[in-house]
Each structure stands twice: as C-alpha cells, then as structure tokens.
C-alpha cells in the first residue's frame, strides 16, 4: 500500500512538472512570417519583411540606425532581420525542413537546400520588369546569376561579390604586431622562416609585456569553421595554390585535388609542427573558442597571427579603442619559400554566388525586388557606403569627403559607429559595385580607395608601411596581374545539393582533416611523417578520390554554365 502511494506521488509530481513546463512554453508563439499583409506597390504603409542571413551581424540595430530609417522612408520596407548565431548550416536546414520561410533569405552556399524544397522564388521576370538598377549593375554578368545547367532560374541576387571590384586592401596574409617589426628594424618578411625568426627574436628579447604577462608567439583560430580560415586555407596561400574551398584545381587541366594531398602543403603543416615543437605556437591554439581567441588578441600579447582581419577584428578593434596601435597587426605576403607567390589576390572574375533571394512566402515580391533594386541604385549605394550627406560626408568641389571627426569614430569606434549610422550594415544585403568603381559624378562608390584607406591607417601602421616602402598593405602582395583569371570563379561558391554523394564525402573528409591536422601539428616532430601518412591513408579509405572526381564534374559544369 505504502509502495503504491509513494509511486503515485512520484508520478503525480512528474506529471505536474511536465504540465508546468508545457504551461511555460505556451504563450510565446512567435509571430509567423508572412502575416503582415500589405498589397503590391507602395501604399505609404511600411511593410515589415522577415529576413534571415547566414552571416552574423552583431551591430544590427533593427533598422533604427540613421541609414535604416532613411531606407524605410524611401522604400517602405522594414527588415525584421535574424542573423545566424553559431553554425548557420543547421539553422538553414531547419528553415528548409520547417516549411516556414523568412520573406528574404541570404543563405550563402546553403541556398541549394532551400532551392531543393522549392522555397526560393525565380527572380528572372521580377528583375526584368521591376529592377532596372540591378540589370544595369550586373550588365553582361547576368549569365553568372543563373542557378545551374539544368535550371537557369535566378534564385539569388549576388550580394557578397562586388561588381568590377579592385582590391586595395589586404586583410589576410601573415600578421605581425607593429611593435615586433619596429623593434627588429623592419626586416624583410617574405618566407615562413622570416616570420618565425621575427617572432623568435622578439620573444627572446621581450618574453613578457610591460605588466609582466607572457607574450604569445603565434596563435591560430580553430573554432569550428574558422579552422578553414586560420589553419587550413593559409596552406594554399603559402604554396602558390589558389583557394578553391577544400580543393586545389589545376588551372590548365582543371584536375581537382583535395588540397591536403599536395606535397607542398605537407611542408606547410610540418612548419606549423615545428613552430609548436619550438614553443612559438600557443599551446591553447586548438582548444580555445573564438571569443577566447579574440580576448587574447585584445590583451595585446599575441605577436603573430595567420588569419583574415575580419576574423580577429573584434580583438584588434579593442586594441585600437585603447590606443594600443603598436599592438595591432600588419599584413605580410608570407610563403614557404621565395619560389612561391602569395596567392591571396588570385582573381576570380565576378563571383556571383551567395546573395539575397526572395522566398515563396514573401507577401509582396514586387515590393521586395524594388527594395533590393533601390539598394543597387546609385543613390542607394552611395547611401549605404557613405551615409547621409552633410552628416557623414560632405561634397567639397564635387568630391565626397568624410569629415575628420566622423572618420576618427568610424575607424576607432567601429561597433558603436556602425550601430548608430548603419554604414556597412547593409552592404551584404544588396548588390553593389566594388572598390575602385566610379559613379556618375566621378566619385568612387565605396569608401575604400587608396587615399581613403591611407587616411584610415593609424600612425603606427603608416610608419611601418613607410619603412617597407609601401603605401598600402596590398603593395606588399603580388598583384592580380601575376595570375590568370579562373574561369570557374571559385570552387567554394559552386552550390552542391545537400544529399549528393560529394556533400556526404566532404563532411567525412572534413571530420578526418579537422582531427588529423591538429594532431599532426601538435605531434613530436619525429612523429609527424607517420601521422601524415596515416592521415593520407585514412583519406583514401574514405573516398577522397571519389570526392575529387565528383567535384571536378561540378567545376566543369560551372565553366560551361558561365561561359556558353
């Protein structure tokens, strides 16, 4: 009797707990997208459209920034944006599975999943009828907007790749703190050996910073997908290969190789192994998370980086905000040896690819395309890049000039400035011209052109560049003219269906690589070869050759699609 009573009690409390949970989770029904009504055309009433982006935008202010308010005024559209946190791949898979699509979607490479489920609208006719600015912007490149060989529909307006862009800014390569090169009398930084020596010499002289904390030689960012950026992609750049995702594509034969299988790259990882063995590589490299990595950089103790500026921007911006310009980073075109050219600037032509599309759930596609068309117009692009005339820039003698105080805030208080003004927040939402393209008044569309860039540089940066006889970081790197244009653009932006064999193989190979590369780097130098051989064998066992072959078919199809 006692027993059953007890049990009933437990059961009852368990039931009540469940009931409680159920009660808690009720009531916060999210407003479902697409319930906001609104008819075609501008009826004066702002229309709220939900928007999902696969890239994070931490400074997004819900269009309450200065540019955002103007955009709403001029286009009658308010974006209710959701930015992916963490791994966007899973979020997009969820959106595809749920059948409730945001009105506008920027899914980057994963757009294939959405197209598969029929979530994306074909924009061909919409652009033809309602988007003169988009048509003018892309011009001959319209062919590159087509989805695939079998499906010539346009599902996204490419918003990541800029049209006719010229690079002025070098944000990648190997990074060294300005204080390091300064103290060593500006030695040439051209090979990994130079880079290593600079770090070692400086570290021997200054094992700690002013407040007694240990300086760190080199640290990498290995958190999730950032592994590609900071750990594995540099293997391309330092060995004369062009970055094509996880694959190396021979320019002449178009033969595809899983890039870790190139013997040159083995030597790059051997060098990293050596850096670890000699204590120059931060022992926490493969344990730390992205925020810890940036916190470390913000502490100013990390001498060298191998990363892109946008990946360590938060850390570096914190240094700038504190005025520690000496501890921010320069960019150097480091390769394994002098025989290689650094390939950061291997040209791809207009990349098309990732961008914003309109979903089938959008209540008013015409208004949506008009909104996107406005972003692509001259007026729109000047607004997004420069801000509001008289507030963020002035026109002096027909030239757009950013006042010194505005520019100072823009460079040194990046986050706040962006949140208030919205400059830079909308660039990847609309199609746009690249750096170095002039508008109808003869001004550049974007704010990064040589003079403006130099103005943005801080004194420490200018001093270092001066010592190396350059005006821009880009000057140190081999320019685009050294390389032939890749007719396939870049392999990493060729969309591949989710359940295609190549995708499955890619995931498996990625898991192997992400396990083996850290293992090889952290191993004792004498064990490196054995681990590398085992890694190669494992790759072969898991179908690396099939993955290469499958990928090659996609590359060939892309070349045909873009150049017929």
């Amino acid at each position, binding site marked *: 009797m006692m*027993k059953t009573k*007890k*049990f009933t*009690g*437990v059961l009852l*409390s368990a039931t009540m707990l469940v009931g409680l949970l159920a009660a808690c989770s009720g009531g916060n029904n999210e407003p479902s997208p697409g319930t906001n009504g609104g008819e075609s055309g501008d009826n004066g009433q702002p229309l709220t459209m939900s928007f999902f982006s696969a890239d994070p935008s931490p400074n997004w202010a819900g269009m309450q920034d200065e540019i955002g308010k103007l955009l709403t005024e001029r286009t009658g559209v308010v974006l209710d944006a959701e930015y992916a946190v963490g*791994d966007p*791949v*899973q979020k997009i*898979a*969820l959106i*595809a*599975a749920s*059948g409730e699509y945001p009105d506008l979607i920027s899914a980057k490479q994963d757009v294939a*999943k959405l197209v*598969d*489920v*029929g*979530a994306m609208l074909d924009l061909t006719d919409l652009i033809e009828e309602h988007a003169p600015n988009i048509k003018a912007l892309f011009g001959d490149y319209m062919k590159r907007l087509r989805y695939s060989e079998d499906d010539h529909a346009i599902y996204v307006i490419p918003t990541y790749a800029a049209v006719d862009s010229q690079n002025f800014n070098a944000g990648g390569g190997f990074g060294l703190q300005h204080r390091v090169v300064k103290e060593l009398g500006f030695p040439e930084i051209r090979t990994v050996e130079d880079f290593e020596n600079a770090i070692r010499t400086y570290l021997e002289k200054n094992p700690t910073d002013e407040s007694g904390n240990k300086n760190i030689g080199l640290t990498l960012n*290995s*958190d999730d997908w950032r*592994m590609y950026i900071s750990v594995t992609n540099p293997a391309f750049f330092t060995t004369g290969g062009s970055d094509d995702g996880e694959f190396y594509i021979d320019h002449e034969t178009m033969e595809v190789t899983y890039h870790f299988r190139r013997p040159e790259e083995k030597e790059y990882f051997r060098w990293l192994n050596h850096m670890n063995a000699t204590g120059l590589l931060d*022992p*926490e490299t*493969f*344990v*730390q*998370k992205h925020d*810890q990595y940036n916190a470390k950089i913000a502490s100013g103790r990390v001498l060298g980086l191998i990363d892109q500026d946008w990946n360590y921007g938060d850390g570096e911006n914190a240094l700038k905000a504190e005025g520690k310009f000496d501890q921010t980073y320069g960019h150097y075109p480091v390769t394994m040896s002098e025989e290689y050219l650094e390939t950061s600037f291997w040209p791809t032509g207009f990349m098309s690819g990732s961008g914003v599309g309109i979903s089938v759930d959008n209540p008013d596609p015409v208004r949506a395309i008009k909104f996107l068309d406005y972003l692509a117009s001259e007026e729109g692009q000047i607004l997004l890049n420069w801000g509001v005339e008289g507030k963020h820039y002035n026109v002096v003698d027909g030239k757009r000039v950013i006042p010194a105080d505005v520019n100072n805030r823009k460079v040194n208080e990046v986050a706040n400035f962006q949140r208030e003004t919205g400059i830079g927040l909308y660039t990847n939402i609309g199609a746009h011209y690249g750096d170095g393209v002039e508008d109808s008044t003869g001004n550049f569309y974007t704010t990064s052109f040589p003079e403006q860039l130099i103005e943005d540089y801080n004194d420490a940066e200018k001093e270092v560049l001066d010592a190396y006889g350059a005006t821009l970081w880009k000057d140190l790197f081999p320019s685009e003219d050294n390389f032939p244009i890749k007719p396939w653009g870049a392999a990493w932006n060729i969309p591949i269906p*989710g*359940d295609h064999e190549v*995708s*499955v193989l890619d*995931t*498996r190979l990625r*898991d192997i690589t*992400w*396990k083996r*590369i*850290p*293992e090889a780097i*952290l191993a004792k130098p004498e064990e490196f070869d054995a681990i590398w051989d085992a890694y190669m064998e494992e790759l072969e066992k898991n179908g690396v050759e099939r993955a290469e072959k499958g990928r090659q078919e996609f590359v060939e199809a892309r070349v045909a699609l873009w150049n017929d």
Partner: protein
Amino acid sequence: MEAITAKKPEKQKPKPKSGRFFKIALQQRYLYLMSLPFVIWVFVFSYLPLWGWTMAFQNFRPGRSFFDQTWVGFDHFIALFSDDRFFLALRNTLAMSFMGLIAGFTVPIILAILINEVRQQVFKRFVQTVSYLPHFVSWVVVAGIVTKMLSTENGAVNDLLMFLGVIDTPYQFMAKGNWFWSIVTAADVWKESGWNAIIYLAAIAGIGPELYEAAKVDGASRIQQIWHVTIPGIRTTIIVLLIMSIGHLVSIGFEKQFLLSNNLVREYAEVLDLYALNYGLGMGRFSYGTAINMFNSVVSILLLFIANGTFKRITKESIM
C-alpha cells in the same frame, strides 16, 4: 468503505467480462471524460509523430507529397550500420550516459541525505539554494566557465595543482580525449546535483518522524538511522527514477558535448545526437537522420524493458 465496495461484486453473479467493463465505464464516465484531453494530448504529441518514421525508408525530399517520395527500403540503415563513425558515436554516448547515470545518481542522493541531516535550518536552506542555482545557468555559460577553469593560462585548476606541487607545467585538460568524458560528467554533476537532490529531499520529508523516534529508542546512531530508515524510505523513489533514466540513456542530448568539445577531442565527444545533426539534418539528409533516431528509440525501449524486468525480479518494484 473499502470493505463494502470490495464485497459488493462478490455477492452478484459473475457477469461476462466485457459487460462489466462497459458498466464500470458508464459509472465512471466523468473520470474517463476528464482524462480524455490528456489521452488526446499524448496521442498527438507522442504517437502521431511516429508517422514520420516512414521517412527512414524513403529518400525524403521536403515539400513533396507522401506519395511522390522514393522508397529505398533499409538502405539508410545499412549505410548507418556500416559507418565507423556511428559506432564511435554510440560508444561515446553509452560511455558518457553510464558515467552520468552513476555520478548523477549517487551524488544527488548523498547530497540530499547530507542536507537532510543538517539541523540548523538557515544553513540548510542556504546550502540547498546554492546547490541548485547552477541548474539555471545555461550550458553555454557553464562551458565557458569550465574551459576557463581548466585553461593552461591562469586556469584555477592548473594553478591549484601547480601550487600543491602535483604538476610542474600546466596540464592541457581540454586537449586530452581520455579526459573528455570525465570533464563532461563532472560539469554535469556540478550543474544538476542540487536540482536532482530536490526530489529525494521531498521523498525524505515524507518519511514519518515516528520511524526515527522508534529507531532512536532502539538505540540507533545517526548513521544507522540513515541506513535503516532514510534509505529504505526513499528506495521506491530511487528505483523509479533509475528505471526512467535508463530509458533515456541513449538520448543524452548534445549541448554539453557540442559546447565543450574541440577538434582534438572530437573522437570522444561526438554523441549520437551530434552525429545525427552533422550527418543527417545538417546536410539536409532527413531520412538518414530519421534512421538514426529510430535506432535510438528502439534501443531506449529495449533498455527500459530490461531495466524494468530486472528490478521487478530483484526488488519487486517496477514502473510497469
């Protein structure tokens, strides 16, 4: 009362069984009516989704009707069972759940008994509150705390061990695969013990004080009172909860593993749910994901029946 109602049917002639059932049902119609919403609720949320299992036998493409899907039979299961990574994930899942089960059972019980033995009311409340607070901290934050504590740079654990002279150089806890299971279990114990102790405390509170008094009169010490009164008093609760958590062995979620892992320990960190996420849902392979999930459910049910049967035989207590 009981005696009368129990006798009543005996007096009457035994009727055919079905007729009696309907008669009782009619008598108790209000009770049946009251339970109806819950039956529907369970049916809708627990049984209707089972229809989705059909996906595992198709090459499911979202947005198409059921009849337009291609059927592939057991292809996904064959792929699943011939994948090494799946077995790796299974091993990790079982290892971490067993460790979690053992630690997650003993610690809250001990904690509950210890808290119960504290006679000073204020202190007792304080300890209880503090111990269950971590339950409300999200795993993201806990993972951050754990990583920081075990860091080689000013991590509290390494600093302490160095101070005590146990090690000379900081130890990379987070980089060693064979530590991962223990770290996850320890973090889990820290986070959930206090919370899980609550139910045992409630059960202990239900034990009649006269039992303790009788034990005291018989000359039982504090330890003996715990052993002979407290523990037998909460035995039912323990076993019921144990059987229920055995049913959940395979589905331990993936939050902690996902947040605490890094590439160096991936071999030890990938659990079934993570595997399903990476190789199923994450790649848009819904059918494959469903196959994994079906396997999980079948194993869970098996484990539940085995555990229930075992306890029924040994202790005569069960939940079914």
